[in-house]
């Protein structure tokens, strides 16, 4: 097996060199990995104007006193998102006073997932006592720019010279099932670091979530 692995590695290396040389010869540009779309940590995040559950339009620029934002792509129906609702409210309650409010955005197409329609959002927010804006990504234009792939999916932003810089992408913590058993609190740690002006230890995490429902 070891010998096979070595052989295989050698084969892969020589093949990559060959294909690299080939591309050089034909002058073809070497393809970048285009599969990854959306923001990476350090990118500038776009502002938006999206409808809130109270019918008013909300933009990041409206929050003149904010130092940054905890942007959470979430929805009504997804069990992973639902299990984080209280924690999202808690994040807003803690960090709004430090200038980092939660902005929740529902990216799902209600035609694909009827529970994620506007009425459902209003009811959900009321039932769960959301203290933050819960916006509709109408036309599904914002979530692809951010590169959100699932709910919940968090982007922590920091205002720098009136631009919003992406500082953290990923999960809220490492236990969707039980908040009290989480041992890593990624979003809290990231925002705490921003408040203290320290570097963020973990800037990117992944976790299981519900795929964003795209209009067909």
């Amino acid at each position, binding site marked *: 097996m070891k010998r096979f692995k070595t052989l295989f590695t050698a084969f892969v290396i020589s093949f990559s060199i060959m294909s690299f040389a080939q591309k050089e010869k034909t002058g073809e540009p070497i393809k970048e990995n285009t*599969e*990854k779309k959306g923001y990476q940590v350090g990118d500038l995040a776009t502002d938006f104007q999206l409808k809130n559950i109270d019918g008013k339009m909300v933009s990041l620029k409206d929050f003149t006193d904010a130092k940054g934002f905890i942007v959470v792509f979430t929805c009504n129906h997804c*069990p992973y998102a639902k299990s984080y609702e209280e924690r999202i409210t808690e994040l807003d309650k803690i960090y709004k006073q430090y200038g980092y409010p939660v902005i929740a955005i529902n990216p799902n197409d209600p035609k694909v*997932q009827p529970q994620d329609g506007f009425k459902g959002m209003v009811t959900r927010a009321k039932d769960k006592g959301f203290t933050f804006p819960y916006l509709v990504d109408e036309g599904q234009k914002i979530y692809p720019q951010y590169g959100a*792939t*699932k709910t919940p*999916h968090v982007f922590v932003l920091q205002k720098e010279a009136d631009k919003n810089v992406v500082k953290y992408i*990923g*999960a809220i913590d*490492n*236990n*969707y*099932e039980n908040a009290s*058993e*989480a*041992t*890593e609190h990624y979003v809290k740690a990231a925002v705490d670091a921003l408040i203290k002006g320290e570097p963020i230890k973990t800037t990117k*995490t*992944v*976790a*299981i*979530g*519900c*795929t*964003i*429902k795209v209009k067909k």
Partner: protein
Amino acid sequence: MKNFLGILFLIMGLSFYQAQLQEDVPMMKYEELEERIQKENDKLLVVNFWSTTCAPCVKELPDFMIINEKFKNNPNFKMILVSLDRPKDKEKVIQFIKKRNLTAEVVLLDDIKRMNTWIPKFDKNWEGNIPVTIFYKNGEKVHFNDGEMSKEELENTINKNL
């Protein structure tokens, strides 16, 4: 006549055996799942990550079962469905196997605290959205399918790699 009866019983027994579904779901950590995958390192292995709570996953499973029925007698083919349901919902998964007649092997990955460890190990481009389907040929990953898969896509990917 005796022979005939014998054969009849044999056929009945066989069909009963065929129709028998998994009655328990083994729960495992990431390392055990990796070992389970590596055990099939002489086959084309289709690994589908799903959950009973995930609508698009549940939607694509009937097509996966049609394809599994088509290929399951091929000794070079194997399908494993990795449930990401909570351990306390194991009974729900067992009921789901019965109700939806899931003929492929089902295991439950009980490792939610280390998602940030094992998700990137399966594929560096996987953000954790489900469903995803990974194809292994002789123990090496040959294809990562991000999202739902149609019956045709699934069958084509199998035929291409079998």
